[in-house]
């Protein structure tokens, strides 16, 4: 066995000197949340790194809605889910159609539309929220799930179109030509050639829009208000209004709410990182 040289040990030590603080910095707030979720109420405040009697009782209370703050937990969970899935699906449809039109059909003015679309990201999110809140009121959509779904589609679409267009430009034109020669109509070309070939990018973009909508707080907080209409993050924010917030339950609910996006992210990590950062570095 070859022993590491002194120089290699030194490099490794220096890397650890960076790695350990990075690990602690990343994990502390997340671990703190988890620790509260598995701690009985009296243990939670003791400052221990692991509870003396770890328990799933907090999850039981949340799942069975056995607390005044949690009486609408399942309906709020459902709201979050419906809004995220709808926003993801709608973004996917709108963005795929637009990317196909701009990249494959070369519709006149397509590039201009895409650049205008990206302009959306140059308006800071909280700034756009103010007039958008008022606009949703004008359209009569306030306190309606559609307001949040449409707001999320507006925010997710430009990036989705951009990522899809980059990917679709890489598909050879000959494919379209061959299909057209065989007598395919434009819609058949879209359905039978384009969509199947774009699948990996579509997964990345759909997941991106879904996570964006699931994680959104500000727009959800502005656009929805009734206890049975709001999404989970708004419900969590409302915990704060009370003086005697049950923190261990708040952290448990937060943990349950944070779990799906983390799981989805890791499940689709391959697509997400590839699909979403590919465009960024092009220069």
């Amino acid at each position: 066995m070859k022993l590491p040289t002194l120089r290699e040990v030194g490099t490794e030590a220096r890397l650890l000197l960076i790695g350990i603080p990075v690990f602690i910095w990343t994990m502390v707030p997340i671990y703190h949340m988890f620790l509260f979720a598995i701690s009985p109420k009296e243990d939670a405040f003791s400052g221990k790194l692991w509870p003396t009697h770890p328990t799933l009782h907090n999850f039981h209370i949340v799942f069975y809605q056995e607390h005044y703050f949690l009486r609408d937990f399942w309906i709020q969970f459902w709201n979050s889910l419906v809004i995220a899935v709808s926003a993801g699906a709608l973004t996917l449809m709108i963005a795929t159609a637009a990317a196909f039109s701009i990249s494959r059909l070369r519709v006149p003015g397509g590039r201009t539309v895409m650049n205008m679309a990206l302009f959306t990201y140059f308006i800071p999110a909280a700034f756009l929220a103010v007039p958008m809140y008022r606009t949703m009121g004008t359209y009569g959509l306030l306190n309606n799930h559609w307001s949040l779904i449409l707001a999320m589609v507006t925010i997710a679409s430009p990036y989705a179109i951009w990522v899809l267009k980059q990917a679709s430009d890489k598909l050879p034109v000959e494919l379209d030509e061959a299909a057209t020669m065989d007598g395919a109509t434009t819609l058949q070309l879209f359905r039978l050639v384009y969509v199947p070939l774009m699948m990996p990018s579509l997964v990345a973009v759909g997941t991106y829009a879904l996570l964006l909508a699931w994680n959104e707080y500000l727009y959800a907080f502005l656009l929805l208000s009734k206890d049975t209409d709001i999404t989970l993050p708004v419900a969590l924010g409302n915990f704060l209004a009370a003086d005697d917030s049950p923190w261990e339950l708040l952290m448990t609910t937060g943990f349950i709410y944070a779990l799906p996006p983390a799981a989805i992210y890791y499940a689709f990590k391959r697509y997400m990182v590839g699909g979403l950062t590919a465009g960024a570095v092009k220069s």
Partner: protein
Amino acid sequence: MAITLSSDHAIPGPPLSARLSTPQVWGIILLAPYLLVFLAFVVYPVGYGLWLARHPASYVALYHDPIFARAAINTLIFLVIGINFKMLVALFLSGFFAQQRTWIKWLSVLFILPWAVPSIPTILSVRFMFNPEWGVINTLIFKLTGEDGPNWLNDPTVALSMAIGVHIWKSLPFWTLILLTGRLAIPHDLFEAAEVDGASWWQKFRFITWPSMQMLYITCTLLSMIWTLGDFNSVYLLTGGGPADLTHVLATLGIRYLRLDQLSLAMASIVCALPFVLPLMYFMMKRLSR
């Protein structure tokens, strides 16, 4: 045989339907849904908002609101410290994560978590860690020293610094990932050649890494500036703008006016940021259209 047309007898163009090929008609139909969304939820709101912000009286009222002045200064501090610190650390960490080690790969998987999970539970977790009475930080301080720890979120300077910290915690992974992608795109033989010539790590950074990443770094910094301006969560969920409305930034202040039903003030406070945002927008649009 040349055909000449006199101007009196200009042939009328064919009807629109004939000038466009079928695929182009489909192109317009397929692009229409997005255009509608853009017009209804970006163009109309922005135009309407600017129209609401047209009264000079709103700006006078803003000028006399001490919370506004404080929020403007806080925003500037937030931007200057938050962004530069975040981007420099991201640049440094992108070098760390570019090292080929199994344990560093595993760490990078965990490192993404702050960005992948929603902000509300994690920011509330931080908020509770620093709770003066029951939070884990002050519990530890009490155990170690026997004294009560400070009331962290009660001092506006400390509270604002912590909000900046939360913002960095949340967005650092994303920028590290982007800069890492840029770093990995640099051809490897450049470094090998430099190593043969006996270049130090600083020389390699100075003469290879930095020149290749400079434009990416600047673009990321500008984009991060726009996004940081729009960051409502870090401040609102950690401090709620308090104590005594001293930690507001323009993002939370706009929403605060909105909640108080002072819409024209909300828009005016946002319009005040335009002189900062417009040059950024211009630069970013130029970068993109290249």
